């Protein structure tokens, strides 16, 4: 559900619920924003303004934090999310080949979303499973030892069916 279409009280309820988990302590701000992002897949401006009121923090501080940390996005993301790891171990195992080809397959650059709103993709600095490089995640499922052929299959599947229910076993 996108935030634009949701009635105002939905946001109210969601934000209050999230802040309730941690209490309105200033040190909980980052976790509150993480949970908001998880809920909406991005940080809607309305939600940030509401958080400022509820946590009694200046909106400038919230905007500062939301734009400082890379994990946060002020733009809506696609339904499916692909992360390509470009950490050192993956870089050495030619993650760039994966990046170049994925960009060609999807027709977008990193941190963009396909025009149909289905798939967004970004590169990240390390997913922390370095022994399996090159590595990508699709909707938080890990796929290790990637090559262009496997990538092509994954992207095809992603374009046609929902892959989130699959495990990595068949990526072998």
């Amino acid at each position, binding site marked *: 559900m996108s935030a634009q279409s949701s009635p105002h009280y939905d946001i109210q309820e969601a934000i209050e619920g999230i802040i309730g988990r941690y209490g309105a302590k200033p040190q909980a701000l980052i*976790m509150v924003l993480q949970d908001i992002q998880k809920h909406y897949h991005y940080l809607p401006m309305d939600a940030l303004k509401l958080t400022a009121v509820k946590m009694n923090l200046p909106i400038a501080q919230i905007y500062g934090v939301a734009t400082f940390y890379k994990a946060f996005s002020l733009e809506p993301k696609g339904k499916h999310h692909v992360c390509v790891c470009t950490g*050192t171990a993956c870089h050495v195992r030619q993650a760039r080949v994966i990046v170049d080809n994925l960009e060609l397959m999807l027709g977008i650059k990193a941190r963009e979303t396909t025009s149909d709103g289905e798939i967004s993709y970004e590169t990240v600095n390390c997913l*922390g*499973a370095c022994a*399996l490089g090159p590595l990508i995640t699709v909707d938080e499922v890990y796929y290790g030892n990637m090559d262009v052929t496997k990538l092509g299959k994954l992207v095809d599947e992603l374009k046609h069916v929902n892959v989130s229910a699959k495990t990595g076993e068949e990526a072998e």
Partner: protein
Amino acid sequence: MSASRLLTSRDLEQHRETLIKNRKENRTIITICAGTGCLACGCEAVTNAFRDTLKELRVSSDVEIKTTGCHGFCERGPLVVIQPEDTFYQRVKSSDVKLIVEQTILGGQLVKKLLYKDPQSRKEIPKERDIPFYKKQMRLIFGKNGYMDPTSISDYLALGGYGGLAKALLSMTPDGIVAEVEKSGLRGRGGGGFLTGKKWRTCKRAKGEPKYVICNADEGDPGAFMDRSLLEGNPHSVIEGMIIGAYAIGSHEGFVYVRNEYPLAVKNLNIAIHAARELGFLGDNILGSGFNFDIEVSRGGGAFVCGESTALMASLEGKIGEPRAKYIHTVEAGLWDKPSNLNNVETWANIPTIIEKGADYFASIGTATSKGTKIFALTGKVNNTGLIEVPMGITLREILYDIGGGVPGNKKFKAVQTGGPSGGTLIVETSEARIHDSMVAHGNIEEDEEALSLLDLPVDFDELSKAGSMMGSGGMIVMDQDSCMVDVAKYFINFLQEESCGKCLPCREGLRTMSDILIKISDGKGDMKDLDLLEELSQVMLDTCLCQLGGSAPNPVLSTLLYFKQEYLAHIRDKRCPAGVCKELVSHAIDETCTGCHLCLKPCPTDAITGKLRELHVIDQAKCIQCGACYQICKFNSIVRVKRGEGERIQQRAKETWAPPIKKSAAKAAGVAASAA
């Protein structure tokens, strides 16, 4: 099971005894590695298959299934180890499970096809401890991972867990603990290598209340994942270490700052904290000692700079993670300006062992200035990738060949990179004379000093620094002939530029300028003056950056200049990338060894490769975008990366000399005929 609080150390020992007694002796346990690596390889499906098969064959009551933390040998996952026999099965698929249950669990036989095969002798090795990858390791901190379910505090207790805490709280004074940690010689495992005991002593002495202890689990170094595996696989060891530290320093509140990108670590840590609270290891009056302490988990926002202590503390306060100058140390004024003692995950995990086994035991391991063991993430172009724990002072040769099993695919070993983005790249295979001259020229050693072959470098804090790199958090990335060192430097500088918080000018602008220069060189547009400028910029950054992110940022450039200057010169003078990585300087071509197998046709994104099956393939040089997909996939090393513009000549030569591949059977026949003659 009762979860009442343990009020005294006697309660703890009784509880432990009951736990051990209730476990049937010599019962069969199927342990399945459920670390991140094995999860990515599908170990969940394997676990489910075991559950179903045991139920189906009605053996479930005698056999226990245990999903454990990371065993370290990620390359071979999913891993299944059957205890007490220590039978080690690798790359297990759910379709193999029935065979394992029938043959091994019920029949007592080994399933040969799933055993690890020694690559040299081709012999199968049935036991985990006999596998070369594990044999040279010393798994002091990491070893319990394979025997326990990280979500079970009972498993940790049965293995002797919280014994160090009981000893510390009930038979040692806070000063005695600090002295013991000082005596052990433990140095911070997060990168800096600062003496842990000394840090504790300063924080203990600092004025101000309350005091905080913090666990830095913001593991941001690309290529390092040991903290993740410790938190996922053995969170109680970290918690136990923190409680001991808090007691010694006089703190009642602790924080773990953990990456949000590690959901399993967050989950297991929270489960562990909850269980520890239930049994009374956290909370008020811990084990009847009168000491109160609790831990809160804080999920990080995902910024590399937050691994720096002052930035981390700012982030813990819910602010932007910008570091500050450290003329006032965080042990005196850290989190909310109160004395704060921050240690890394692995450092905390060492504490229970030091207290339990004693400082003398711990100090007997390692070298003169670096004690104990270190966990490294061995990754990149090496056969056995994964997590290894080795005594300090082990040589690179032992790590790379004995444990790592060398470089795959008959390629040449080139370098090893340690210390993350702030570390250095060490040359390994080159003439000793050149290393010597280069090190003298850069002032790393004196003229009459001998330059060690870096393969025989004992790996510890000081030796790595002397060689122009650093220990860092323990990433160890192996590179072969396909890695270009200009590209590696460019990669790290670009990484750091993206992660620079932008607060101080030398880091913000210095990295940007360095990145521009390195891009210029790798595009073949560099000139000799650029090298001087790189060195000059490096010096300014070393001298003036606010925090260690910027202050150590020039290391990747300086170390590659130290050991690989020739490669920079090739890019600048000859407009050539010797490793064939820098796109602007490279052409991909197919040589005469092509078998015409068609494998490279499909992945080519621009359809630049043409050729009939079993005939020579050709890359259309005008269409090729140098993405390297074909190079990655070719099994015969027939795709070559040559100097830009030379592709046509290579393919012309291939056209003239190419002959269709001899079929296997024909080749055999020819061989037989030849040997008969």
